[in-house]
Every structure is written in C-alpha cells, then in structure tokens.
C-alpha cells in the first residue's frame, strides 16, 4: 500500500442516538468524512461529547452507524478480515481484572488462533516492549494506571496490526506515565504503523501526530498538518524594561502595536520596516529591549479558535 493510499476512510458517517426522552435523536456524529493515510499518525481531538469515541466504536463494529459508510483497507468495517489487521486500545483499559498480564496477552493472542509456542513468544515480546516483564504475573486489578495502559497497548499489538486505534492512551496517567506512553507510540510510528489516535492532551498530540482533525458536535471542523492549522505566526512580542507611562501610551498609538502592558509590547502583522520603527521608538523613549520573539500558535490556540468559530 502506498503511503498516499487511504487505510481508513469514512464518507458521510452519521450516528443518531434516539431514545424515549429524545425521539428526535441526538447527533453524536454528523456527516463525518475522515481519511487516514497509510503510515501516518492521525489524531482526532475535540471536547467531551464531540463524537470521537463514538466514531472509533463505529469503526470497530461496536455500534452501528445511522447512515454513511466506512472502510478500512478498502473493505467494509463489517468484514471480519479487517479486524485481523487492526489493534484497539480502549479508553481506561477495560480488560479482565482478575488475570495477570501474561494471561491476558495469551488469551487475546489465542483469539487470533496462534499456537501455544507463538503465544508464549508474543507474551515475552510484547511485555518487554511495554516494559511489563517484571510485573507479568501481577493481576490486572493490582496494577497501577500506567501499568494497565501499557498492558492494554500490549494486547492491541498482539496481532502486529497495520492499523492501531488508540482511544485516550494517556488518560489518567501521571507525567512520567504520559512520557512513557508517548515514547511507545513514537516507536510504533517508527515501525511504520498507521495510528489513529483520540486524545485530550494536545501537547502529546503535537509531539506524535502528522495530521490532526478537530471534532466538535460530531463534525470535523478543522483538519490538516500542525503547520497548516497553525498558519503563519503574525504576532511579535517585544519584552522591554524602563519605559515610562507616557512613552508606553505614545507607542500604543502606532498602527501595528496591539498592546503595551507591563513592559511587553505586542505588534501584529508588521513588516520589517514597521518592526524597526517600533524598536527605534522604544530606544528613543529610553527603554531597554530585553527580548524579541515571534510565538507560533499552539494546537491549543488552534483548537480554541476552531471551536469558538464553530460555536458562533
């Protein structure tokens, strides 16, 4: 499969939950058109209730769409052969809690029909990969949150899947745990796996993902690489010292200056000559220039902006 071919594709995917109390229905997913290319790491981000988990559950056949279609590896999601090639890490690692890590891996490997020897190999390999060799006999319920997430990732890798679907892989983890999980995901990415990731933690998404899709109220409101989404950095921040109030007021009157507060001057959409003009004004007013930076918009900024626009 070429890297440009879509491994996962949805067209107009819609899910409406109807109940006695809501006969009209609640649209959890609304006409979603998603496409994940081979070898890329695609992250779906969005606030709670935006339809991320619902989308994943539809893709895995746990719930059924109201309309629209989805395909994985060019086949319908209802095709059992698809599941031979995907791995799923559920949110909050829901696994049988009375079994140990090695028993769980053995069980899930058995569902793929692997013989005993292969299963034993897999247990060793996967537990080493996720760093659970030392705790292989600890029952799941006695494991810490971090250990559970790692075991859940191990079970998702049992069949060496081409496509990995991870639902909130770092939720509930401490910073060390998040760091570990992120390293693992990067390792899997390095091995050429296609990863579809749902997460709240925008910082880690920035670290691992090639493309991001922002979901809000069941719709994809923004999609693209980080740089596409972030766009050009138009703001410049000048940190100064020793500018009096009168001088600050005079500075603020310049067209490109947005704000002068506590010695921090923000200018927007300024070309080079305008920038030099501002710097000269500061110098003439007797101020000291401490720092000049051009901050890039974070994913958080993009996210908030996209949601805000959509909300309007």
């Amino acid at each position, binding site marked *: 499969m070429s890297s440009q071919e879509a491994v996962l594709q949805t067209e107009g995917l819609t899910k409406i939950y109807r109940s006695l109390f809501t006969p009209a229905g609640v649209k959890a997913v609304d006409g979603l058109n998603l496409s994940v290319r081979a070898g890329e790491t695609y992250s779906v981000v969005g606030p709670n209730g935006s339809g991320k988990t619902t989308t994943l559950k539809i893709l*895995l056949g746990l719930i059924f769409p109201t309309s629209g279609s989805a395909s994985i590896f060019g086949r319908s999601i209802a095709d059992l052969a698809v599941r031979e090639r995907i791995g799923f890490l559920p949110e909050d690692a829901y*696994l049988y809690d009375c079994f140990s890590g090695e028993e769980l891996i053995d069980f899930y490997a058995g*569902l793929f029909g692997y013989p005993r020897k292969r299963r034993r190999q897999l247990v060793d390999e996967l537990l080493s990969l996720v760093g659970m060799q030392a705790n292989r006999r600890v029952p799941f319920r006695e494991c810490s949150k971090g250990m559970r997430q790692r075991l859940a990732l191990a*079970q998702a890798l049992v069949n060496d899947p081409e496509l990995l679907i991870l639902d909130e892989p770092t939720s509930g983890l401490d910073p060390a745990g998040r760091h570990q999980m992120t390293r693992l995901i990067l390792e899997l990415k390095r091995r050429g796996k296609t990863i579809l990731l749902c997460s709240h933690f925008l910082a880690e998404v920035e670290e691992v993902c090639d493309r991001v899709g922002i979901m809000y109220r069941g719709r994809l409101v923004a999609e693209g690489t980080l740089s596409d989404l972030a766009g050009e950095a138009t703001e410049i921040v000048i940190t100064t010292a020793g500018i009096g109030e009168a001088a600050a007021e005079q500075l603020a009157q310049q067209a490109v200056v947005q704000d002068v507060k506590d010695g921090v001057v923000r200018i927007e959409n300024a070309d080079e000559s305008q920038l030099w003009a501002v710097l000269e004004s500061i110098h003439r007013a007797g101020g000291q220039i401490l720092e000049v930076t051009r901050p890039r918009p974070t994913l958080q900024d993009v996210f908030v902006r996209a949601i805000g626009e959509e909300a309007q």
Partner: protein
Amino acid sequence: MNPGYARVLFVLGLIIVAAIIAVTRKAWAPGAFHALPSIWRIAKITVAEARRRRVLHAVVVLVVLILFSMTFFSYLSPQEQARMLISGGLAAITVFGILLAIFVGAFLIPQDVENRTVYAILAKPVRRFEYVLGKYVGALIILGAVVAVMTAVLVGVLAIQDRLVADLPESPFNPNLGGVIFAAVMSYCSLAVLTALIMLISTVASTTMTVVSAFIIWAVGSLQSQIYDLAESATGATKLVLLVIYHVMPKLENFDFRHQVSNFISYSVYSGWTAVLHGIGYTLVVLILASIFFNDRQV
C-alpha cells in the same frame, strides 16, 4: 401410559436431530472451523474468571456442609435416612444449581458489556455469535463442575452411610446410587436449558433486569400447572397469553426425577433422554435467538 411410548419418542427425537444436523451442514460446517477455537477460548476464559472469583468455592463448600449435616439424623431408621439424604441432597443440588445458573447466566454478558471488557474482545476477529456461544459453553462447564462435585459428595455420603449401617437387621439403606446420579444428570440438563434462556435475556437487558427476569422465569416454571389451570378458567386474550407462557416456558419438570429416586419408584430412562433431546433443540433455538439479538446490540 404405555412405557414403550417414551422409547418411541426418544428414537424419533434422535432421528429428527440427526436429520436437522445433516440437512443444515452446509450452513454451519464451513464456519465451524473458524468458530470452534474462538468459542473454546472464550469458554476457557469464562471458566477461568469464575474460578478466580471465590463465590463458586463458597457455594460448593456450603452445599458440602449441608450434605454432611444430613448424616446427623442418626435417630432415624436407615430407610428414613436414605430418603432424607437422597431427597435433601438432590434438592440442595437443584436449588444451588438454579441459583448458580441464574447468577452465572445473568452476569456473563451484561457484566462484560457494563465493564466494557467486551470492547477488546469484539475488536478482535471474533464474531458476535462466537462470543455468545463461548460464554454459554463456559457457563455449562462451570455448572457441570459444581454439579459434579456436589453429586460426588452426595454419592460419597450415601456410600459411607451404606457401609456404616450394613450390619443393621432393619429395613435396608438402599443408597440407590444409580438413580441419584441419573437424577443429578437430568438436573444438570435442566440447568443447561434454563441458562440458555437466561442468556437470551442477558443479551438485551442489564444485569439487574436479567437477574429479576430469571427469578420470574424460575417462579413461572415452578407454577406451570397452576398457570395451565388459570388459563383453562380464563377467556380471550388472557387465556391466549397464559397458554403461550405455559407452552413456551421450558418444561423443566420433564427433567425432574428427584421424586422417583427418593421414593425408589421406577422411572423411564427414555423419558429422561427424550427430554434431553428436546432440551438440546430448544437450547439451540434460544442460543440462535440470543446471537441474533446480540448481533444488533450496540455496546
């Protein structure tokens, strides 16, 4: 009733079941190759999970204690003792078997759905009907093991009592071991049918609803003859509903040989095995329905 009638029904039942299997083999044979290992794996994990939960051990210990306590009635004559042990022991096996069938059957699927452990399984190449059947086979193994242990203890207690009272000149003890084992096996078969019905409900309901429904089924099953009487005196829609309930509910009474065995009355073994054949047919239909409903269940 002509005793040969039961034999005829049994042979007829065998022929029908064999015919159904033969005629439908093209439908199930190809899928069976893939399905059987998955079903077996899920059954194994179900059994392993039940073993880890100490509740089962507690139940078995309780029943064993009850059975041993029945040997304390030494002031009764050997004949009375035999009757007490057999009827009480078989009743204990049935009661605990039914309670176990209800709780095992009711918790298997709904608990997985509520805990969301089912996600990781259904995300694997496991068909939904394989999951349902696997859970059922696991339940059967659990019930079978518990019933086997309880029956073995009962048989042991009877054999020991028989040895102890062997020199007494009064009426014989007569442990009726063959009858006891037959009654226990039939009891197990009735539990298998009941469990299938409970699992059918569990594929669409929550744990609590399933447990409540299971107790209602048990109560209705015990009062079947009263329902029939009610139906006879009712009219119109009520009569229809009652008759449907009466006929559709599995007649677990057909598997009940406790009374005959405790009172040393002769019974037709063919009647029992015909009931088992019927039970197999009923169970298959119920499990297929369960699979159909679970297939559409949004987890």
